[in-house]
């Protein structure tokens, strides 16, 4: 009798059932809030033919980028795919299929996928290459395009804290796409820094309900920083 305890004890168990040619929805923005150990486990397993839906594709050395090295990704749906040498090569050679999707549309597609909304209209991308093949419709004198939602066989998510029921709390901008991805997976796997007992999280501070979470694992994180920018005394306002 497991009840609502979602905790698993190995990354192997966390990704049990992952197969070639599946679709993954992956949280994170750049390397911030990446489910980095789950990604490493996929590299270890060697699953191939993957369709990956995520805002970015990591860097050459980190995040989803490491799956490109072994050509595990067949198709990437993302809003921005710089910072990775292998990416451009594989895209140019036709080995990698890429579907560039505006960031806000991508976020909304994940949310809609999790929320049972099959499609929605957005002005984003109207009149651009993104609109090709998509319905255009006018509402109140403005043009919008129809975008369909996305769901995945697996969602891979990084959160900060969870109770064993899978209720999640994210931290700062590591939240980004993670709660959205979590709603859109048939099997949602979440790795976190801290696991507490049910009742220890204030129900009002929970960012995402455990109803979306299937498996939960405690991990250790590298948290690589892409652009380490520090305040210089002589120009303190630059960061703003």
């Amino acid at each position, binding site marked *: 009798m497991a009840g609502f305890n979602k905790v698993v004890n190995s990354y192997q168990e966390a990704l049990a059932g992952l197969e070639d040619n599946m679709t993954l929805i992956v949280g994170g923005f750049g390397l911030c809030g990446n489910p980095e150990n789950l990604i490493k486990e996929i590299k270890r397993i060697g699953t191939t033919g993957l369709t990956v839906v995520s805002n970015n594709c990591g860097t050459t050395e980190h995040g989803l980028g490491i799956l490109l090295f072994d050509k595990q990704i067949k198709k990437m749906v993302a809003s921005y795919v710089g910072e990775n040498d292998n990416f451009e090569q594989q895209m140019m050679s036709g080995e990698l299929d890429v579907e560039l999707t505006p960031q806000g549309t991508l976020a909304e597609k994940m949310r809609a996928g999790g929320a049972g909304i099959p499609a929605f209209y957005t002005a984003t991308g109207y009149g651009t290459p993104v609109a090709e093949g998509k319905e255009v419709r006018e509402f109140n004198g403005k043009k919008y395009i129809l975008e369909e939602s996305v769901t995945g066989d697996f969602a891979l998510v990084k959160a900060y804290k969870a109770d064993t029921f899978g209720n999640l709390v994210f931290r700062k901008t590591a939240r980004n796409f993670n709660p959205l991805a979590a709603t859109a997976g048939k099997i949602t796997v979440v790795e976190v820094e801290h696991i507490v007992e049910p009742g220890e999280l204030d129900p009002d501070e929970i960012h995402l309900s455990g109803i979306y979470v299937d498996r939960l694992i405690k991990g250790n994180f590298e948290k690589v*920083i892409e652009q380490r920018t520090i305040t210089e005394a002589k120009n303190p306002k630059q960061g703003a």
Partner: protein
Amino acid sequence: MALSREQIAQRVAQELQDGYYVNLGIGIPTLVANYVPAGIEVMLQSENGLLGMGLFPTEDEVDADLINAGKQTVTMAAGASLFDSAESFAMIRGGHVDLTVLGAFEVDVEGNIASYMIPGKLIKGMGGAMDLVAGADNIIVTMTHASKHGVSKLLNQCTLPLTGKGCIKKVLTDLAFIEIKNGKFHLLERAPGVSVDEIVKLTEGELVVNGDVPEMTF
């Protein structure tokens, strides 16, 4: 003389109003934050999920979980709020951001903008730029007026794939502050020491010049 990057940022900053929520793109737009006029408060939105971006951190403050849309480490100002990416773009798409400043490769007389892709050359993706141009009412595009070879970037029709269609009304280049309406460019201001003729010559699209065009002041 053509404006420096800093001067472009400085002129854009004059458009800020007290209480504005502002999204600043990467590059010159980011510099706008350095020139917020005295007596005016603005809050910076970063589309990866932060409203109320603060200064860059000190060494001690660096936090891998706190970055901006350019993936730089940042801090939070007092009164900041954090949210997920869907919520962030709900703000943007829903028109709740008061001013968006972003760069471009080209704009045209119809208010079209191309800023994310050079086929065969630069194909990294649009990030949040398409959402920003489609969602904001008040956008200022910052760019150089022409290429180094004197080829205008203010066109009759954009040649590169569009980021947005008919959504740009204001452009600040290194030479001029221009409004787009009724299918034409309108010259509002010129950079100090830059003549109207010079601007006309480097503007491919039809440029309307009404009376004396004032120089920008800083």
